[in-house]
């Protein structure tokens, strides 16, 4: 699967789920939550991000609480999260909602704010369309890829229940 988007860079390490979306906004609709996405880190981000843009982040993005902070990222229409490393809870949370959250060591120096990037989840590469350079991303296990490609956990379960019923 190939995705294209412009990079929003967050060089800070350890951006927790509380920073991605404070728990105080957890009762809002996904779109309303999106308006508060990463507001503590960059107050201008949510207002300016365009649908399909990528979040490019430093080490340990999405660490901390298991709270559904990915809802704000999806609510904002972000196409993918590519970070130096990502907290496990965030990866699975994102996958179950059909959002790519890919670890890619070196991405923070590879991509600059505003760069057009292409994420290729078949070759596990991120290409910088401005420079033509590419960098390897960490592959994810097959079932998580299937889940994201099908659009999330529900569609994955539907496919799997059908497979198991057919056996």
């Amino acid at each position, binding site marked *: 699967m190939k995705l294209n988007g412009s990079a929003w860079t967050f060089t800070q390490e350890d951006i927790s789920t509380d920073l991605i979306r404070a728990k105080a906004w957890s009762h809002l609709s996904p779109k309303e939550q999106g308006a508060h996405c990463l507001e503590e880190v960059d107050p201008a981000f949510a207002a300016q991000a365009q649908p399909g843009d990528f979040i490019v982040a430093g080490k340990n993005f999405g660490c*901390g609480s298991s709270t559904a902070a990915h809802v704000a990222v999806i609510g904002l229409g972000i196409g993918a999260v590519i970070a130096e490393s990502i907290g496990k809870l965030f990866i699975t949370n*994102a996958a179950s909602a059909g959002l790519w959250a890919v670890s890619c060591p070196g991405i923070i120096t590879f991509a600059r704010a505003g760069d057009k990037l292409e994420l290729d989840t078949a070759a596990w590469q991120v290409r910088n369309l401005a420079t033509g350079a590419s960098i390897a991303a960490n592959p994810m296990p097959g079932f998580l890829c299937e889940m994201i490609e099908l659009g999330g956990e529900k569609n994955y379960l539907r496919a799997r229940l059908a497979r198991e019923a057919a056996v």
Partner: protein
Amino acid sequence: MCYPICWARLSYRGRILTNPLRPVTKFQPAARLRPCGNRFDRRKWNSDHQEETAARGVITARALGRQKRGNMAGMHALQKIVAAKAKPARVEVVAGEFLEIEPDIFSVIVSFNATEARHLVANLTDLGVKDLPLKHKIIAFSDHGSPAPSAAAAEGHKLWRDFYRAHGVQVIDGGAGISHLVLAERGMAAPGEIVINQDSHAPTLGAIGVFGTSLGGGRMMLYALGRYWIEVPKVVLVKLEGRLRPGVYGRDVALHINGVLGQQGALGMGLEFAGSYVIEASMDMRFTLCNMGTEMGAVSSYIQPDATTLSWLQPRCSKPYSVFETDRDFVYESTHVIDVAAIEPQVAVPHACDDVKPVSAVAGRRIDQAYLGSCASGRLEDIATAAALIKGYKVHPDVRLIVTPGSRDVLMAATKAGYIDILHEANATVTNANCGACPGIHGGILAPGEVVISTSTRNNKGRMGKGAEIYLASPATVVASAIAGCIADARDYSQEAG
């Protein structure tokens, strides 16, 4: 001088002999070879408790999970638990493998979020799931923001309660306390089990030898299929040696470890605590240590169950369980040795839990609120420390001291022991048992610009209120600061005032 044969010793020695190249950050033979008269002797424990263990089905054996394994590299107890719970069960596993497992307990939250509840119900209906395969293993806790602090929260709570009850899921309602405490205290979780907890501080249960892990996605899979996937973790070992100085507590050790390892110190890995300090530590402090694994990125914490663990479980847990042990030739990802005798009271300063300083570096900082509670430090020993320190003093008039016991059992025991009366007399606010102010949704939310010193789990920016500053410290430091009106060293306050 004699060195009793003790499996813990052998396992460390075994690793050293068979793996001379394993990464060890520090090596202290003097501490390692200290006589260990009061250490846990598994064989003695088994023979002393033969009848009870047979009756209750307790198994403590190094061999567990080791049968039929050829010359494979050693496995950690956490890895053996995953292997045993895999569907189909496995004898040997390698770190990095994803295994599908069926958990022994799936602990969920009576949440705030009405939208999530509506989605889940609609999705399960859509998938044609009528009966939850795990329903007898699902336990719902009303611990986050309970009882409801707002109409919106009440609506969310109601939808979740309705969903759980419609499916015959047990709901443990408000006031019982935080899931991590209740699961252990009421004997719902037992050693050798996998407990998946919706709340991120699931590693807390590692203190009783449970593979306790949280989940991000995969919730619907657990509801619809009763299955989850776990990546077999690598394991980081933290060896805590020596004795604490007076006025320094387990929470200071936990904060110090967080400072040493950082927030990525065990990212995606298991985190084991061992060493002479752990062997002597009480269960309350062991839970505190394991709780903080989450803050270092650990998927699960672990302390090898010993006589202290099994005696603690005796009156609480009546179901059969198995204690897994780490193979002697298991290779840890990394090993950190920490001398706890060198630790001063610690404070994690805003806005990172690994930005840890000795209390002297921040003493004098004005505070508006002091908070004692959470799954990190809301246990009886924490409240006992607070009561002993505050007896005869009053909370500073400019400060609100809020005490939230972690569970009803803790609250009842603290009441019986007279601690709660002492706190009331000192003008503390004592709340019902729940997660309280820690997640910033209940009982002590802060205004912008306010400063809190807290025993809670995290000090992320905005967690306890937008624009507020959170300093994390031990119960003693929190109470001393509440008396002083600013961050203070508890060792400056005698335990018997005036």
